[in-house]
């Protein structure tokens, strides 16, 4: 252990000749500091750069000959402070008002306090802004000597005691998209003032908590755990338009606020999956309180219907365009909050071909364009827009341009999407606890249904056409719909959730050379239609039950079924004759897939023009591959001949 002085010449922290063991004027080269060294910057010390490998037991800018007034240039690295012994004077880090701190990166120019000493040590930052600050010393005891401001995140990973109350220390996170992970400690006060998403982690207690939004429409406060506010809490958006969304980190899983006796300052805020243990009434908030679903213990601003009217290209967020009745009547409305209804009707757009841009973060409980005149265009903003209910587009509109993912999160009631013949790009659905139904046929490029076990997407019998769909975890009700998968790659994945197949048809239409993978998820489907042609295979993974064999139309096709797995075809169907070859293999060579037919009353299995490999036939009736088929290898239970004439049959073959 040594006491090292930052020399007059300064330099990089982790360099020998930056340090003297005498004083700032020393000529010895006693650095670089180890985790057991106390480092002092004093009046005559030069500037220092926190560089890779920088460590010390303590760094004090006040205990030398006089306060240091130099500059810390903080590279984008983590400065580790502490070892198993308390720093000299129990001061692990102390700046003074004369110090300049220059961060290379607002977040990753970071400091970690990692002492494992149980002695109380005091951190003083003198109002300087640091990057990420982490407390990660098992058994440590730290006290904040003054307010701490970080342009990064605060993380309390390990330690025994954290005292922010003795000195009424406020921790302020001013950066964009920062995390306050309090480690379950009690804090005097935390202010989260940055733009974007401020995340609060761990079950913490705050005497005072503030999340104040900025002049953007996308500010969020996310809580990954329950919190307690004992004296006061402020949740405040910037304006009625630039609102703050306060929500749980998991849609459908509420976070609770224990708020008994705490004074609330809440305005321009929307809540999602938040429970106030002591009921609160935010209905009189001047810039309104919004209900995005999943909340309890909150009285919100009363919902209202707002009618839009414009004669020019305009934004959704223009307050003056909203009225309480159609055609600009009824008095001033408001930019709809989540529980509201937004109406674009025959009187809404009074000139031809105008564009309305949804430039806020959401569309409310109900948005309808029914009866709109003059073919207005509707454009969504470039950041993800959340749909909190039903959306009705119409064929009377001009274009619909979706510039970012549409998060369908309507959870105030069951809701409907009517496309009016407009196509959507990306759509992620989480309507946990509710059902969202199609009002008509829907075409969407990317479809991701993550509504969990209690959410349902219901096609209502209409077509659903998607390029690809991701790992759908929610329930799917298909009725008699055709689900058309138009692209390649993993075109559909339904590993969990349920499928109510009805009499639907899954249709693969891509004829490119790229494979199409269908993750069946051991679900029961009904019919399957495949457009023939193209060298790209249709790859079925996981077990599945189908009503009948796939119908391949118009060309040759290769199909892959999962090895060591049974695909069940309940019934059969008659198809026409052709010479298009259908190649059927198992996913792993020499490891057969099993095709099982369960309904013997449907007749024998009669196929033709197949190339079969690694396929086990199973069922109460004979399987005939057909006279023009080839049993390549690994087939069991197949007859390599045509079926005898005059016997009821189920057929699989290429057709034109």
């Amino acid at each position, binding site marked *: 252990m040594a006491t090292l002085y930052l020399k007059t010449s300064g330099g990089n922290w982790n360099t020998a000749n930056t340090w003297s063991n005498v004083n700032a004027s020393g000529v010895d080269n006693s650095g670089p500091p180890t985790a057991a060294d106390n480092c002092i910057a004093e009046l005559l010390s030069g500037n220092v750069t926190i560089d890779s490998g920088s460590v010390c037991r303590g760094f004090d800018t006040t205990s030398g000959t006089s306060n240091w007034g130099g500059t810390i240039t903080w590279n984008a690295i983590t400065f580790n402070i502490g070892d198993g012994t308390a720093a000299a004077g129990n001061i692990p880090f102390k700046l003074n008002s004369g110090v300049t701190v220059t961060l290379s990166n607002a977040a990753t120019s970071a400091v970690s306090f990692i002492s494992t000493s149980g002695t109380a040590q005091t951190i003083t930052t003198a109002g300087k802004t640091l990057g990420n600050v982490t407390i990660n010393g098992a058994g440590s005891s730290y006290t904040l000597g003054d307010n701490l401001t970080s342009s990064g995140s605060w993380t309390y990973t390990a330690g025994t005691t954290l005292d922010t109350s003795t000195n009424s220390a406020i921790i302020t996170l001013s950066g964009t998209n920062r995390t306050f992970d309090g480690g379950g400690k009690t804090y005097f006060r935390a202010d989260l003032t940055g733009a974007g998403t401020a995340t609060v982690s761990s079950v913490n207690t705050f005497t005072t908590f503030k999340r104040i939004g900025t002049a953007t429409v996308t500010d969020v406060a996310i809580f990954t755990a329950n919190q307690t506010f004992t004296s006061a809490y402020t949740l405040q958006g910037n304006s009625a338009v630039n609102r703050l969304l306060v929500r749980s980190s998991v849609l459908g899983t509420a976070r609770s606020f224990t708020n008994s006796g705490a004074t609330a300052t809440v305005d321009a805020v929307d809540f999602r999956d938040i429970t106030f243990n002591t009921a609160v009434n935010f209905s009189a908030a001047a810039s309104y309180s919004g209900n995005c679903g999943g909340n309890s213990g909150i009285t919100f601003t009363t919902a209202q219907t707002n009618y839009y009217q414009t004669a020019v290209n305009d934004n959704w967020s223009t307050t003056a365009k909203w009225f309480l009745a159609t055609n600009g009547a009824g008095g001033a409305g408001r930019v709809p909050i989540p529980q509201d209804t937004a109406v674009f009707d025959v009187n809404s757009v009074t000139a031809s071909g105008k564009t309305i841009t949804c430039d806020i973060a959401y569309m409310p409980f109900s948005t309808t364009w029914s009866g709109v005149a003059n073919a207005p265009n509707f454009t969504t903003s470039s950041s993800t827009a959340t749909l909190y209910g039903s959306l009705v587009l119409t064929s009377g509109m001009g274009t619909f341009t979706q510039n970012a993912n549409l998060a369908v999160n309507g959870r105030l009631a069951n809701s409907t999407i009517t496309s009016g*013949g407009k196509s959507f790009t990306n759509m992620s659905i989480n309507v946990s606890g509710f059902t969202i139904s199609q009002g008509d046929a829907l075409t969407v490029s990317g479809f991701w249904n993550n509504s969990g076990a209690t959410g349902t997407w219901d096609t209502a019998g209409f077509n659903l056409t998607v390029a690809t769909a991701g790992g759908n975890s929610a329930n799917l009700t298909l009725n008699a719909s055709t689900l058309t998968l138009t*692209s390649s790659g993993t075109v559909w994945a339904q590993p969990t959730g349920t499928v109510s197949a009805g009499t639907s048809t899954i249709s693969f239409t891509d004829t490119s050379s790229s494979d199409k993978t269908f993750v069946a998820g051991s679900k029961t489907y009904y019919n399957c239609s495949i457009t023939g042609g193209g060298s790209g295979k249709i790859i079925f993974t996981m077990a599945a039950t189908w009503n009948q064999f796939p119908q391949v139309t118009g060309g040759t096709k290769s199909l892959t079924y999962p090895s060591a797995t049974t695909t069940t075809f309940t019934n059969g169907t008659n198809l026409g004759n052709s010479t298009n070859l259908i190649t059927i293999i198992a996913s792993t060579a020499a490891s057969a897939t099993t095709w099982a037919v369960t309904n013997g009353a449907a007749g024998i299995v009669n196929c033709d023009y197949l190339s079969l490999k690694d396929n086990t036939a199973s069922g109460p009736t004979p399987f005939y591959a057909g006279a023009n088929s080839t049993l390549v290898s690994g087939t069991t239970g197949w007859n390599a001949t045509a079926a005898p004439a005059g016997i009821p049959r189920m057929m699989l073959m290429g057709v034109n």
Partner: protein
Amino acid sequence: MSQTVLVQVKFEEETPYGTYRDALYYDLAEFNLKSQKEIDADAKVRIDAYIFAVENPLPPPEYTKEELQAQLDDVAAQQIEINVALEKKKEDLQDAIDVAAVAIVVP
């Protein structure tokens, strides 16, 4: 608040890519002025759009880093769910095997 009465016209059509089922919505007054020919024409626009969408599919979606991370998290959660279900199935099968082993009498 004024109420808009809409008339829903469901239609379906056989296409080279399967049965197409869709619906048109008209304001009641608008519907009363529509001839069947006009409605059929409106339906044909939708059918043609579907065929065009199949033959000229939308490009695969492009997701942001955050959206991809969310999807990764979803898949990881589902993987856990599936594993739990399979473990339970294994336990049930093992229990059944254990019972069967006791019950079977080897001649």
